[in-house]
């Protein structure tokens, strides 16, 4: 079979960094081709070149035997290339139909388009109402909007950039059914992910990128996840080790915690209760936007609650602010790195001061002890392998993964008794993520109680003793993480939000 898309020697350099270096591969019609690599390996740049958003410095692309150099996405779409973005490129205030019309070259009149949206969505098992405002949809539904937008143009090549990061396991299954159906109909799919199990179950070819270069090709079904991970990282990965220990006395107790939504777009917390013991890790899963940020702020002290809803060692701390809780060794690392966990324009030294002042004694009589603060910042940088020219650098200048290591390290090094983290390894490469998880496990081993909120289920299964899920502001009853199946977790997370499996051909 001749290749649908053939890429030869594609190179793209930005000042100071080569995003893609002499990349070559080809995709056959109907093939599900995985593009595998860590953050910063150049996957996104590569597909942006195929989609006409970025122009390569050198190299050639051939589509169906014809030279292919899309000057803009419009041209790529005209040639049958469609793309579902990692960060959804949707317009919240517009309706589903309007959003879809914007992604089409020659959209039919609105009434006809609405009909076609309904047709395609039932054909592929992705129910969607054309008149809904996109801002009101769940993450899974938003993704359906993007997929249907692509499908309406009968693409020959569908590019999917990290499509499953916001979906529940059930939603992932439905997405895969749709993709398999498309592939059977002859549509080639270029699938970008760093989730190895997904790639093994879906894709029939994989190209592995590392630091912009192709470092391997394989049939992912023939390889184990560990082998794929090694190709991706370039070295052997050591999973975090843990020594099973009996949990100690109850450390953090939350009883009937309710909190109204902080803003119109926030989520209200409803009647949340759990206990974390000393030496225990409680993993909290759930699709983003189900109350994760709000739970963190209720535990960190950013949002005070009344009475005895939050207790440390039996003493109520619900009404205390963040600094008072820090003094009691209750620390937190929020998800949003720039703007919440760190002040973007301030140096790492200043950022170290912001949460470390109380516990590290970095102030004297209201004056800042800069020498001690600098030492603390340098300690974080060395201990957590933060790659930066020095502690005087602005937080915004660090890459996402490095800043993540910094903000987690900053809390871990303050010897917390209770540590609450949200998305601790988001955007961090695999080896650094393993190091962060190891440091969290070490904390627990030394008697701290940990609450780890994450959307990465593999991560939660790896480090938590017990697991609970947030769904629309409610927390499921925590269950022992050992032996929990992915289906059970999915149900705890609220299932598939009314999705149905594709019934193309059978309907």
């Amino acid at each position, binding site marked *: 079979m001749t290749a649908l898309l053939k890429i030869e020697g594609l190179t793209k350099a930005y000042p100071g960094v080569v995003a893609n270096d002499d990349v070559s591969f080809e995709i056959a019609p109907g093939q599900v081709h995985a593009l595998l690599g860590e953050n910063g390996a150049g996957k996104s*740049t590569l597909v*942006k070149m195929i989609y*006409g*958003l*970025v122009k390569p410095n050198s190299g050639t692309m051939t589509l169906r035997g014809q030279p292919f150099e899309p000057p*803009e*996405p*419009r041209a790529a*779409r005209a040639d049958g290339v469609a793309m579902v*973005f990692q960060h*959804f*490129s*949707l*317009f*919240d*205030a*517009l309706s589903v139909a*309007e959003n879809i*019309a*914007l*992604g089409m070259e020659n*959209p039919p009149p*609105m009434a006809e388009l609405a009909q076609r949206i309904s047709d395609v969505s039932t054909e592929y098992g992705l129910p969607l109402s054309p008149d809904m*405002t996109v*801002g009101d949809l769940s993450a899974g539904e938003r993704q359906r909007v993007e997929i249907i937008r692509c499908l309406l143009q009968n693409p020959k090549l569908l590019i999917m950039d990290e499509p499953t990061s916001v979906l529940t396991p059930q939603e992932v299954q439905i997405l895969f059914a749709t993709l398999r159906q498309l592939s059977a109909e002859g549509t080639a799919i270029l699938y970008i992910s760093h989730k190895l199990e997904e790639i093994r179950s879906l894709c029939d070819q994989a190209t592995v990128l590392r630091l912009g270069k192709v470092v391997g090709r394989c049939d992912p079904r023939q390889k184990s996840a560990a082998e794929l991970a090694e190709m991706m990282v370039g070295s052997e990965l050591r999973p975090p080790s843990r020594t099973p220990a009996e949990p100690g006395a109850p450390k953090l107790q939350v009883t009937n915690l309710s909190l109204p939504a902080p803003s*119109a777009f926030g989520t209200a917390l409803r009647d949340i209760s759990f206990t974390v013991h000393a030496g225990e890790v409680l993993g909290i899963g759930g699709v983003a936007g189900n109350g994760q940020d709000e739970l963190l702020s209720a535990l960190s002290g950013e949002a005070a609650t009344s009475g005895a809803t939050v207790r440390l060692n039996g003493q109520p701390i619900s009404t205390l602010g963040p600094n008072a809780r820090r003094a009691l060794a209750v620390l937190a690392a929020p998800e949003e790195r720039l703007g919440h966990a760190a002040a973007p324009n301030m140096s790492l030294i200043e950022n170290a001061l912001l949460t470390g002042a109380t516990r590290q004694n970095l102030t004297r009589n209201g004056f800042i002890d800069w020498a001690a603060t600098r030492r603390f910042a340098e300690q974080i940088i060395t201990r957590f392998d933060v790659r930066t020219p020095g502690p005087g650098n602005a937080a915004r200048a660090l890459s996402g993964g490095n800043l993540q290591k910094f903000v987690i390290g900053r809390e871990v090094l303050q010897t917390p008794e209770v540590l609450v983290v949200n998305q601790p390894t988001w955007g961090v490469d695999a080896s650094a993520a393993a190091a962060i998880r190891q440091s969290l496990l070490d904390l627990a081993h030394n008697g701290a109680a940990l609450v780890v909120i994450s959307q990465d289920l593999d991560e939660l299964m790896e480090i938590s003793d017990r697991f609970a899920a947030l769904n629309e502001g409610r927390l499921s009853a925590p269950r022992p993480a050992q032996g929990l199946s992915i289906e059970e977790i999915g149900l705890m997370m609220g299932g598939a939000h009314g999705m149905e499996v594709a019934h193309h051909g059978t309907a």
Partner: protein
Amino acid sequence: MDLSSINAASLIASLMVASTPILLAALGEMVVEKAGVLNLGVEGMMIAGAVCGFVIAVETGSPLAGFAFAAFGGAVLSLLFGVLTQYLLSNQVATGLGLTLFGLGLSALLGQGYVGQKAPPIARLDIPVLSDLPFVGPVLFSHDVMLYLSLAMVAGVAWWLKNARGGLILRSVGENHDAAHALGYKVVRIRLMAIMFGGACAGLGGAYLSLVRVPTWVEGMTAGAGWIALAIVVFASWKAGRVLLGAYLFGGITVLQLNLQAAGAKLPVVVLDSSPFVITIVVLVVMSSARNRAALAAPASLGRPFHASG
């Protein structure tokens, strides 16, 4: 106080004339803000349009030529704002304020030789029978062409934003410029066109002041009209129909309080003078607060600079 001196028909007719400058300016600014750009230079573009239109109308004797040039002048001035904010990524608020100051100064300079002159009169609609009807005639059928054009533009803009593909693209750019860029739309170009449309509308509004409403050239004659136009856009929740309502409300109260002053109302003049501003804002605030969130949501990218990456 003698209320019998106030004639309802002429009151309504003159409120329409009084409202048109603000209506035009607010309509233009609404389109600009729908594209995600906050141009605070409406006052400056209006006064520039007022002087451009007046000068050309006096020199050529044709008010319509004056209007055309006023639109051109407003658009050119707004293009300055557009280049600064869209290409050079200057701060929109500061640049808009600077544009207002610049427009006020420039117009004073250009208009120096024209102070106190009278504008050539603009033709009014005169349809036999219809224009002579009692009440309906003076209210509906005896205005100048620009007033009808302003109303047609309200309907046209409302329809275009809602139903035309161009309008959808413009809204998408104002809603999420990164996503619009990812889909391949030219964010900067679309915004520049919206900015120029807004400038042309503000220019027309200004010229309506100096050619029809007053009709003479006085330095600083816009006297805050551009600012009230900006406020109307916000409180009208970026909807063309409500912009019309807000502008006519403001114009109506302006005319009414002038009539009350003339009729000798027992209220202090300062209260009457400020009443249009206060009442318009209060009414629009009450209206917009009663609506649901989505209805009054500002364009999500409003005022945020866009810089294409990669």
